[in-house]
C-alpha cells in the first residue's frame, strides 16, 4: 500500500429517505490505491452510502444527504457539475446491466459522453477496457451484438469494462458477485487485484470472505451506522472489540 493520502474523506455522513434515516454518523477515509471493503447485512445502508458519493441523490428527490464528502479535496456537492464528478467514479451494480446497445457502444458510451469521437481512439479504449475486464477474448468477434444479450457473467464484466472506460479515479463495486457464477466471481476478483495498482476501489460485498481476500481495510455497517473500520487482518483475526462484528463475520447472522 503506497497510499496513505486519502482521496475520499467522509465526515459525519447521514442519509435519509423522506423522514426515514437509513445511515447516520459515518466518518471514514478512503486512501489512494487501497481496496476498502464494506460488509454488513442487507438494509445496513451500504448501497445508499455509495450513492451519496457519486451524487445519485440528484436523481431521487426523497434522498437527503448531510455531512461532508470530500472527494479529491472538494466536497462532492461543491463540484461545479455533478456529471464531471460521476465521470471520475466507476460503478458496478449488484445485477449486471448490459445496456441494450452493442458491446462496442456499451464501452464507448462514457468516452463519447466525454466528447471522444475518433474511431481509432474509441477502438483502442474499447479493446483495452474489455481486455482488462477479462472479456475481450469472448466478445472480440461480436462487438456489434447486443450487450444486453450476453450471459450474466459476461454482462457483469461488460459493466466493469464500461466503468474502466471512464478512466476512473475511484471504482465502486456493489455486491458484484450476487448474480454471477463462482468462476466469473473469481475472474473478476483477479481483475480487481490488477486494478488496485492503478485506482482506488470500494468493494461492497455480501461475501465476508471476499472482503478478506481482497480488502486492505474493511468497514462493517449495521443498521444504518458504521460499527467499525479496521485493517482486514485485524478484523478477521478476532482482534475486533465489537461482538456484532465477530458474530457477523462468523456467520451468526446476516
Amino acid at each position, binding site marked *: 500500500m503506497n497510499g496513505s493520502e486519502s482521496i475520499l474523506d467522509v465526515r459525519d455522513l447521514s442519509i435519509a429517505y423522506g423522514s426515514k434515516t437509513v445511515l447516520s454518523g459515518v466518518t471514514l477515509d478512503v486512501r489512494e490505491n487501497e481496496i476498502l471493503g464494506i460488509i454488513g447485512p442487507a438494509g445496513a445502508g451500504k448501497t445508499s452510502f455509495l450513492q451519496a458519493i*457519486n451524487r*445519485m441523490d440528484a*436523481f431521487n*428527490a*426523497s434522498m437527503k444527504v448531510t455531512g461532508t464528502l470530500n472527494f479529491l479535496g472538494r466536497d462532492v456537492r461543491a463540484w461545479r457539475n455533478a*456529471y*464531471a*464528478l*460521476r*465521470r471520475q*467514479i466507476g*460503478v458496478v*451494480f449488484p*445485477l449486471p*446491466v*448490459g*445496456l*441494450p*446497445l452493442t458491446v462496442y457502444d456499451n464501452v464507448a*458510451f*462514457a468516452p463519447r*459522453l*466525454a466528447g471522444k469521437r475518433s474511431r481509432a481512439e474509441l477502438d483502442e479504449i474499447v479493446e483495452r477496457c474489455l481486455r482488462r475486464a477479462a472479456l475481450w477474448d469472448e466478445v472480440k468477434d461480436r462487438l456489434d451484438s*447486443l450487450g*444486453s*444479450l450476453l450471459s450474466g457473467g459476461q454482462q457483469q464484466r461488460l*459493466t466493469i469494462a*464500461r*466503468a474502466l472506460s*471512464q478512466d476512473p479515479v475511484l471504482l465502486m463495486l456493489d455486491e458484484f458477485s450476487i448474480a454471477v457464477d463462482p468462476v466469473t466471481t473469481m475472474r473478476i476478483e483477479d481483475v480487481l487485484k490488477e486494478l488496485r495498482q492503478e485506482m482506488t476501489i470500494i468493494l461492497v460485498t455480501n461475501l465476508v470472505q471476499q472482503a478478506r481476500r481482497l480488502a486492505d481495510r474493511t468497514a462493517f455497517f449495521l443498521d444504518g451506522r458504521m460499527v467499525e473500520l479496521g485493517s482486514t487482518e485485524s478484523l478477521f483475526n478476532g482482534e475486533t472489540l465489537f461482538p456484532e462484528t465477530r458474530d457477523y463475520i462468523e456467520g451468526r447472522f446476516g
Partner: protein
Amino acid sequence: MFAATDRNRTNDRIQRRYRNVFLGMTLLLVLPVLIILGLLVVRGGPVLTAEFLFEFPKSGMTAGGIFPAFLGTIILVTMGLVFSVPLGIAAAIYLSEYAPDNWLTRSINLAIINLAGVPSIVHALFGVGAFVIFFGFGTSILAASLTLAIMALPVVIVATRESLQAVPHAFREACWAMGATRWQTIRRVVLPNSVSGILTGVILEVSRTAGETAPIMFTGAAFFVPFLPQTIFDKTMALSLHLFVISTQVPGVPEDFPYGVALLLIIIVLSMNALSIGFRTWLRGRKKW
C-alpha cells in the same frame, strides 16, 4: 392405477368442456363483428369504385362520389396527429423521466387518465369554446383538427408513458452513474428502446379519431361543401359526418351508399393499424433485454 387413469380421463373431459365454453363465448363475440364486416363488404364493396372515391357528390348527394369527405377525413386525422403527437410525447417524457414523484405529478397523471374517459361530445363543446370562439379560428379545419388532437392527447400520453416505463430503470441508473444527463440517457437508451411501442400505441389511438363525428361537426366539418378546402381556415366535409348525413338527412340516396362510406372509414382505420403493426415489426427485430 385404474382409478388414476379414470380420474385423468375425467379431468381431460372437464378441461375440454371448459375450453369449449370459452371458445363458444369468444366466437359469440366475434360473430357480430364478422357479420357487420361481411355486410359492409358485400353491400359497400361494389359502391367503392374510383368514381365514388374521387368525384364530388352530385344531385344533392344522391349521386356522384365522396371525394371531399374522403380527403377531409384524411386531412383532419393527419393534422390531429401532427398536433397531438409531438405535444403528447413531450408531456409523457416529462411525466415519466423528469417529474418528481409528488402530489402535483400524481394529480396530473390522474387528470390525464380521467381526460381519456371524457365523452367526445364534451371535447366538442370545449373545441367550440376554445378554438372556434376564443381563438377565433371559426368553424374550420384548424379548429376541428385541434379538437381531435385535444381528444387524442390523453391517450397519446398514456401510451407513450407506458412504453417509456417498460424500459428497465437499471438502464437509466447505469447511464447516470457514467455521468450522462437525463436527456442524454433518454436520447441514447430510453427512446431508442421504446420508440416502436410509442409509435404503435400512438397511431393506434389516433386512428380511432377518424370515425369521430361529434368533435368535428361543431368545429369544422360541414354538411356539404361544393369545393375542396383551400386553407386550414375553410370548412371541410368528412366521412363520419357524411355517413350520418346521407343515412338520415337526405332523401333519395341509393341504399348502398352508406355502406360504401362506412367500409371506407373502416379501411382507413384498419390500414393505419396495419401500418403501425408493420412499423413495429420493422423496428423491433429482436428483443433487447
